[in-house]
Structure formats: structure tokens, C-alpha cells
């Protein structure tokens, strides 16, 4: 088998047979089947659709390596292994603790990422700064806008152009170890009080201005997204008062929670679900006084060196049967009704992952202004260096 052939072969014989069986069983759609097997290309060529001929999502010029920037504990490592097995492209995973950190890297230039995971409120800024490109949806046949939940996905579209497609949605709540903390914690007000008392030296906040400042604001009765100087000043006062009592300021709190070095933390849905699954004593609660509701997206940086691989992985992740594995492992709620249908009942019935609509009401989506507001950025930096 020549190198040329191997690199250009979209799929092996075994995989083809496998996919064919799945199509027959009806577990995958015809569209997926055509996409994954590369028969879509053949169909397209036969149908004389120009433009698709060199489409990197199907052709073999995507190299052997790519890099993705994402959040801690955000993917099933098996997903990337399967992607490598299917395409020959190895995926390097870079982990970041805040959108600001990703933005800073992109602004400084030369990240090497071919795909990254920004949160809803950052996308308009990335577009404005020219850091991401409009997605070529023809390279993403597995993505179907009509099956997405608009509430979570509309921020991926700017001026009618799709710049990012949704990964999953989620909330920012409180995870606490119930064997260590007996005081009931149901709000961010409780969180900060318990952090200074029963959980003294054992509570964690994110290294992330949006949630750390936002939840402090919420606990004081202000908006999660406030940029008003007097309200921020109050939040800063609270955070600096709490700081000596904290265990750490870190967005990767899973290792500390698992080791019971930390007993309580600000926590994203997916981490909450993972922690609770492995350690039932760790509970996940939403602040009844407010907090964040969010959706994460996939976008391709303008500076990406291997866009073909970026599109290939994105298309792979958009296929419902791949996405469903990701969602089960990662524990975040899906935005895609196709995936929802495939999810087992114990996931869809999990109140951490799919909470009651009523508990979501007080939550707010992050606002674009918080990403670039110098007041919040500097507050966070002062808090950390205090």
C-alpha cells in the first residue's frame, strides 16, 4: 500500500463494513454514513458538485497531527483515540482555565490550535478581533442547525454567519463534599459564608474572572455580569476577605476535590456530574440567588495551521453517535436533539445534568462586555495578587 493511498484512503474496509451494518440497523443516519465513509465525496463528485472535490474534510491533506484548546476534564480521551484510529490524525489537547487565557494566547499569536472551545459570550469579540473565521458548513455535514436548541446556540452566529457550532451547554454551580460540610449550601451567599467558616481552607474558586467575580456579585445581590464600578468594588471587598480562607484559586478543581484536599468549589455541570458519578458524597447545587448558564462552542482560529484536520475533528465530534459518547463521559447536557435521543435514561434523568427549568430561571448567560472590561480583568488580577 503506497503512502499516497494510505493517506488518501478515507476509511478502511473494516470500518466501511462496520458503518454499513450500523446504517442497516438504523443507528446512524444515511447522511452520517455517507460522511464517515467518504461515499459522500463520491456522491458529490458524481453529482458534479464543484468545490467539494478538494474538500479537506474528505480528502487526505490533513496531516498527522493537530491541536485542540479546551477546558479541564472536558473530553473523553477515547474520543481522540478513536478519531486517530479513523483518520490517522493525532490530537494534542491543551487545557485552559478561562476564556481570557485562550484570548490572551490568540492575541499574542502563534497558538498552533486547529480547534478550540470558546464560551458563548466570547464569540462576538473573537469575530470583532478577526481571530476566528466563518465556518465553512459544507465541511461539516454532520452538523445540523435545525436540530440545535436556539437558546444555547444563537451566539455562534454573528451577522447571519456561523462562526462557531455548539459543543454542549451547562451551568456554574457549587460542588461540595457532604461528608465534610454539614451546613446546607443553596446559594452563592452560603458558598462564601461557608468558605470562611466550616470549609475554611478547603474551598476553591475559579481562576476565571467571569465566574469568580460573577458569583461574588450574585452573592451580594447584583447581576452576574455587572461592570458597575461600585458593585465591582463590593465584590472585590468580599473576594479579598475570602481569599485567606481559600484552598486554591484554580479552574481545575477535580483533582483536589477527588483527593478531598478541597471540600467545596465553584463547579461546572460536567465536572459536577463526573465528580458525583465517581464520588456520590460530592453534591452539585445551583445557586438559588443566581449564577451562570452557558454554552460552549467549537471554533477554528484564523491562525490554525491545519484547518483541514480542525474541520475533520469538528465534523467527527458533530456526528451524533460520537457526540453521545462524549456527553456520557463528560457529563454536560447536549444542545442537539439528535444526541438527546441517543442518550441513556440515567443521563437524561440526572438532575445535575438536566436540572428543572425552574432552577435555571435565576441564572444568567455571560455578557460579552465582561470579557474585555478592564475593570473586571484588573479586579481579578488584584484579587489573585492580593
Amino acid at each position, binding site marked *: 500500500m503506497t503512502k499516497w493511498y494510505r493517506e488518501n484512503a478515507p476509511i478502511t474496509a473494516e470500518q466501511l463494513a462496520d458503518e454499513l451494518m450500523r446504517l442497516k440497523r438504523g443507528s446512524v443516519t444515511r447522511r452520517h454514513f455517507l460522511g464517515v465513509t467518504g461515499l459522500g465525496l463520491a456522491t458529490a463528485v458524481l453529482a458534479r458538485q464543484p468545490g467539494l472535490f478538494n474538500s479537506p474534510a474528505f480528502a487526505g491533506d490533513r496531516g498527522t497531527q493537530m491541536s485542540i484548546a479546551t477546558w479541564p476534564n472536558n473530553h473523553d480521551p477515547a474520543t481522540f483515540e478513536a478519531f486517530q484510529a479513523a483518520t490517522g490524525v493525532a490530537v494534542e489537547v491543551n487545557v485552559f482555565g*478561562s476564556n*481570557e*487565557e485562550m*484570548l*490572551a*494566547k490568540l*492575541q*499574542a499569536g502563534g497558538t498552533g490550535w486547529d480547534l478550540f472551545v470558546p464560551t458563548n459570550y466570547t464569540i462576538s*469579540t473573537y469575530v*470583532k*478581533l478577526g481571530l476566528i473565521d466563518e465556518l465553512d458548513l459544507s465541511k461539516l455535514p454532520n452538523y445540523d442547525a435545525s436540530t440545535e436548541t436556539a437558546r444555547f446556540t444563537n451566539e455562534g452566529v454573528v451577522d447571519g454567519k456561523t462562526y462557531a457550532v455548539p459543543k454542549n451547554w451547562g451551568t456554574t454551580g457549587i460542588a461540595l463534599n457532604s461528608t465534610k460540610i454539614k451546613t446546607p449550601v443553596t446559594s452563592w451567599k452560603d458558598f462564601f459564608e461557608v468558605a470562611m467558616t466550616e470549609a475554611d*481552607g*478547603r474551598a476553591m474558586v475559579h*481562576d476565571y*474572572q467571569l465566574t469568580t467575580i460573577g458569583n461574588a456579585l450574585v452573592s451580594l445581590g447584583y447581576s452576574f455580569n455587572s461592570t458597575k464600578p461600585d458593585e465591582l468594588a463590593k465584590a472585590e471587598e468580599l473576594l479579598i476577605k475570602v*481569599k485567606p480562607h*481559600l*484552598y*486554591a*484559586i*484554580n479552574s481545575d478543581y477535580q483533582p*483536589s476535590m477527588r*483527593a*478531598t*484536599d478541597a471540600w467545596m468549589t465553584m463547579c461546572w455541570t460536567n465536572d459536577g456530574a463526573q465528580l458525583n458519578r465517581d464520588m456520590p458524597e460530592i453534591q452539585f447545587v445551583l445557586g438559588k440567588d443566581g449564577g451562570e448558564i452557558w454554552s460552549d462552542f467549537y471554533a477554528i482560529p484564523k491562525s490554525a495551521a491545519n484547518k483541514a484536520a480542525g474541520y475533520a475533528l469538528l465534523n467527527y465530534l458533530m456526528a451524533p453517535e460520537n457526540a453521545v459518547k462524549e456527553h456520557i463521559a463528560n457529563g454536560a447536557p447536549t444542545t442537539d436533539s439528535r444526541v438527546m435521543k441517543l442518550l441513556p435514561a440515567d443521563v437524561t434523568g440526572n438532575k445535575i445534568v438536566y436540572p428543572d427549568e425552574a432552577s435555571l430561571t435565576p441564572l444568567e448567560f455571560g455578557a460579552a462586555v465582561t470579557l*474585555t472590561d*478592564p475593570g473586571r*480583568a*484588573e479586579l*481579578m*488580577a*488584584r484579587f*489573585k*495578587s*492580593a
Partner: protein
Amino acid sequence: MPLIPLPRPSPRSYGEKGQAASSPLPIAPVGQGNRTGAASPLRPASGEKVAGRPDEGRKFEIDFNGFILMPAATNTKRNLVTAALVAPAAAWLMIFLVLPFIAMLVFAFGERAPEGGYQAAFTFAQFARLPTRAAAFWNTMVLAPVGALLCLLVAYPVAYYLAVKADPRYRLILVSLVVVPFWTSLLVRTYAWMYILGSRGIPNLLSMIGFEDVRLLNTPGAVLLGIVYGYLPLMIMPIYVSLEKLDRRLLEASADLGARPVSTFFGVTLPLSLPGVMTGVALVTILLLGEYLIPQLLGGGKVFFIGNALVDLFLQSRNWPFGSAIAVTLVAVVVVILMVAMRIAFRVAGTRQVDLV
């Protein structure tokens, strides 16, 4: 990076000797040259040293100048060779030290762009905001010297043992063992400490003997421990070198004259090893002033050094001008500390040259 040598003043006539045969040239008398050299705050020793024995290099040169008369052409050729020798280093220093420093200085007077980064301006606002990082400066200024002194307390006995007490047969291997940890990444070793100090490590052992829920990780104590651990070899080596050079006969003489071991130590050994001590302390302190990793990994993002504040400003809050202003200030602080340290070192060590290599 073990062994950070500071510029060591050398008898300045040497190099000419190598070229002497074909291209002798009148050279400024030694004493003068070194006084000019003192323009650099980092080589104040030059004057004193040469002043101590002024004739050594000079005699040679005068002999030499008297010996050969050189044609003008050779002189030009010699200068060309000299220029060629220093040109790559000069270019490197200009492009990657001087130019970046100027850029940083320019940035420090700029403004943060609306979305973060840098925007041209001329304002002192960044310097005016320096007090907002007072805590980071304070942490660094306290924990760096404290860390260096703790290092010294641990390192001195080890260096003393290695140089004076250790069996000569095993000395080399014991000294090598001090340096070997440098060959494993500091990051990986620090990560190991995260495990040891985390609740599966020492606190787990403590809970077996009844001390529940002891917290070690993410405390200033953990950061200090990491500092002592990471920089210990850098402290041991210079002290060991200065003790090893120590003339044993002095110790014998002291004992023969009836001094107790303790007074021998404080009267003879310690003063003679002071240059090594000074080198070690200055070295470790300076490196600690820019430390980032140890506070980051063992301090849980809570114990902030200036290095952490800088990384945060560039890689999180994206305020390049303010970051530049802090970096410029840090450099100024380092220079001041160095000058004070050198002054103290020379006072303590008299006119003796402090050997920093």
C-alpha cells in the same frame, strides 16, 4: 541552571599576549582600564583588586610595548579581528537584550487596548498603578530572602560536611549527588511535591497517628519548602567551593593555638567561607525574585510572586503595558539589591575579591 557566575574582574592585560607576536599595540595601563570598568555597577571589585597588586600586569605590557614597534597596518588588522570576535555577541546582545528592553520600556508608557494588549500612548498611569501589586512585591521581597536564608541554613552544614568532614574517597560522588537532581526537570520534581504535600501524602500519614485534616499544600510554607528544595544545590555548590579552597593548615593552627572547635569555626572557617555564602545567597535571591513555577504549583494560585503577577498580566488579564511597567520595576529592584549585596559583600570580605564563578 547551576552556577551563575557574575562578571569576574580579570587582570586586563591578558588577551594581548596571545596576539602579541604579530600585533602588539600600546594598551592603556591596567589601573586606568579597570577604573573605567567600574562604570558597571557589577564590577566594583576591579579597582580594589588591581589596586592591591598594581604591577603584575602592567610590567608585562610595558615590557612588551617597549619590545616591538608595530606598523599601522597590523593595527587595523588587529582591530578587524577583534571586531569579528565580538560582533556576533554584540549583535545578539543588541537584538535580544537591549532592543527588547527598550521595547518593554516603551510599552510601559502605553495603554491597554480596549480588548487587551498594547496601545501606543505616553502616560505614567501604569507606574502609578504599581501599588496595586504591592502584595505581590511584598510576598516576593519577603519570601525570596527568607527562602534564600532557609536554603543557606540547610546548605551550609552539607557544604561543610562535604568539604571538610567527608571521606575523600566518597567526596566526589557525594558532591555529584547534590547536582544530579538538576537533571530531572524541576517541574516534574515539584509535581512530586504536590503529591507528597497533598492529602494522599504526608497528611494521610499524619491522620494515621491522629492528626486529621492537616493542610500542607497551597500554603506559604509549601512554597518555602519548594524553594528550599529547588535551590538547595545552587546554595551548596558555591559554599562547598569556597570551603574546599580553605587552607586546612589554618584550622590546625587555630587548634594548636588552643581554640575550641566552635571558636575555630566562627573565627576561621565561617569568615573564610563568606564569599561562597554571599554568592549563594545573592544567586538564589535573584533567581527567586523572578520565580513563577513554585508559587504557581505549590501555592495554588494564592501565594503570588511578581513572576506570577507578570504571567497573569500577559496571559490572562492581557494588560501588556502594566505588565511591562512591573517588569521594568522588577529589573530596577534586582539591580538595587545586587548593588547593595555587592557592597555588603565587599565590606564583609574586605578587599578580597568575591569569586562568583
